[in-house]
């Protein structure tokens, strides 16, 4: 049943959000701390585990894949509801701060990417995926 996959996805999101919200309360922060990321970890573990096969394989899996395929259209809708007008009204200060932060962060991506590549060479990636 397609809905099994959709339900699994939903449970992962709700559980992740609950953890993120609880983490926010624990840290005394007015925000959900990593709820979506935690939810993603749940789904990764579920889709890699044999116990959840009934919910992730075959037709059930298509219930998750559908939403994954809807990702880009949803992101386009998200772009269309951004407060772009406010961004342009912030003046030179807002523009400079935003642009400078992005340029510096872009420049650091290759620097920090090297940190992760020390232990295992990159070419292993494709082989592992095929084996698993």
């Amino acid at each position, binding site marked *: 049943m397609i809905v099994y996959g959709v339900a699994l996805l939903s449970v992962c999101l709700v559980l992740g959000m609950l953890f993120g919200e609880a983490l926010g309360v624990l840290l005394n922060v007015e925000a959900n701390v990593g709820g979506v990321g935690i939810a993603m970890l749940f789904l990764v573990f579920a889709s890699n585990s044999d116990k959840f096969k009934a919910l*992730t394989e075959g037709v059930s899996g298509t219930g998750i894949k559908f939403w994954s395929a809807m990702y880009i259209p949803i992101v386009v809708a998200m772009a269309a509801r951004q*407060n772009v007008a*406010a961004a342009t009204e912030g003046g030179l200060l807002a523009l400079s701060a935003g642009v400078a932060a992005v340029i510096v962060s872009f420049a650091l991506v290759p620097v920090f990417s090297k940190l992760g590549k020390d232990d295992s060479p990159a070419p292993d990636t494709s082989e592992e995926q095929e084996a698993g």
Partner: protein
Amino acid sequence: MDIVETVFVRNNLVVAFAVVGVVMWVSYFLADKLTAGRIHGSAIAIALGLLAAYWGGTVTGGSRGVADVTLLGGIGLMGGGMMRDFAIVSTAFGVHISELKKAGIAGVISIFAGVIISFVVGAAVAVMFGYTDPTAITTIGAGAVTYIVGPVTGEAIGASDAVITLSVAAGLVKSILVMIGTPLIAKRIGLDNPQSAMVFGGLMGTTSGVAAGLAATDPKLVPYGAMTATFYTGLGCLLGPSVLYFIVSAMF
């Protein structure tokens, strides 16, 4: 006209699906015919979305872009936080645990580095523009982290409304620039594998920006970037009104 409005408003989410579908079709058509596939169709679709949002914001004076236009209200639901997060989580389906482990530590470091670097850059710009009040400097720096961290920090430390608005604007500029700039710069910064995508998500942090930027670059990278990016705003809200504010106060 009344009938159209009634039907469109009552079925707003369905209208949004249809409208976005048409935008996607037009975008992929343009990408194919005009740029011969050099620019990704989704990048054009996102740019069109941002243009529409600008138009919606100036026409209605609202804060939700095109979603404030009565007939297109469903865009607000389709592109809202709930659907966005649902779709982001679904992209994690089929991700291998080994990929996450490989970039785990680099990913975590990049989240901390990303928050601090964006904050320092934003705060430095505020100082260059003549701000000397630590509250204002901190709030604008926090805005350069994300447009959520800015107001959360500003309200916590008692910044003025004008400064909080500036911090939101700085965060929006960042988010929009990441959406548009990522596909253009991806090759040059080596953004073509899960490891660098996790680092990218951690350094940029703006969930919307990362989500759209990676979608326009290579949809396969989305889960990795999104995973680290979603921790960024939380960390920013944690550090902004506390450690970072104390440091700025000690300096000014």
